[in-house]
């Protein structure tokens, strides 16, 4: 991910009227934004709509970006507020469904979807599926730390807590992720560790 002066340079030029340059920022961050939004809503159409809304809001508020933090940090703050607003409008509880219950129900219904009986899952698949079982908060913080490469201070700024609290939340999210993996993907985790 490009950071620092290059982003700020693009922003300055967009503010001076080179609107087409904004597409570079969009291409640079679209995957990160889309992935974070998917933590809030598994529906890809909704996620794409929200992600587009995020970039449009970011464009309209571009003059308010002071450059004190990274552009990505500022952008991910907009993602958080936009997602919460969207979910409230749709009346979906923000501390979302317990995905584990949905998972277990699907598993018990003798469908082709059997968590522990699927052919050998790759390690990456296991992580992705375990992430889907986490709560919105946990999945979001793991995504921000590992995929969006935000520091604890930046994560604190995005989710509105101090860095120490962000650190505790990250630790708990990791622990819960590991628990989900051990509970639902026992064989794969054994292979991973062994």
């Amino acid at each position, binding site marked *: 991910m490009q950071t620092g002066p290059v982003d700020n340079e693009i922003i300055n030029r967009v503010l001076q009227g080179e609107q087409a340059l904004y597409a570079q920022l969009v291409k640079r961050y679209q995957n990160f934004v889309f992935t974070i939004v998917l933590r809030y809503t598994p529906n890809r159409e909704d996620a794409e709509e929200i992600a*587009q809304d995020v970039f*449009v809001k970011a464009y309209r508020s571009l003059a308010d970006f002071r450059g004190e933090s990274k552009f990505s940090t500022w952008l991910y703050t907009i993602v958080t507020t936009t997602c919460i607003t969207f979910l409230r409008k749709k009346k979906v509880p923000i501390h979302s469904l317990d995905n584990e219950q949905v998972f277990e129900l699907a598993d018990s219904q003798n469908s082709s979807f059997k968590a522990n009986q699927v052919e050998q899952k790759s390690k990456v698949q296991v992580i992705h599926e375990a992430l889907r079982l986490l709560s919105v908060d946990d999945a979001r913080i793991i995504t921000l730390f*590992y995929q969006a490469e935000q520091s604890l201070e930046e994560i604190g700024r995005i989710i509105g807590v101090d860095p120490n609290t962000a650190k505790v939340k990250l630790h708990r999210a990791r622990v819960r992720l590991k628990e989900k993996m051990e509970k639902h993907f026992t064989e794969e985790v054994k292979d991973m560790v062994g």
Partner: protein
Amino acid sequence: MWDYIDGAGSQEERLFIEQLIATNQQWKAKYQELLELQDLLSHRLELDEPSMRFTQNIMEAISKHQIAPAAKSYINKRIIWGIAGFFICCIIGFLIALFAQVNWSAGSTDNSLINFSKVNLNKVDTTNFFNNTYTTIFMMINVVLGLVVLDMYLRMKKAKAESMK
């Protein structure tokens, strides 16, 4: 252990953890486990991608919009502080006027600020106060507002209870 893997923690803590990992099999096994997880999370998680038209859709959407001027260009903080200062001065002035009305040296042996024994509630005439039409309307509006707030609070509680199920 996570602090050690993240490279955080003090030098003493890191040395202590290193020693534990080197000497204790359980710690070593746990460390390997967490390291594997860390590697997966750091390097193997893939990002989801939106549709091919994503960027184009955004550029089409922003072509209809203008960038809003920076908030600091039209919000003058001095005006906001000025208004706040005016209200604070009004409140302080009101409190000063209030305390100035109190007779601090009333010549009574009673040292309390307000002598409740001299207040005769039976002689207080409230009929004019409660007979006033405007007062009645004001009280009715307050009751309605109170009921609306109560309703909102109960709906919020219900929504929370439903989401917890």
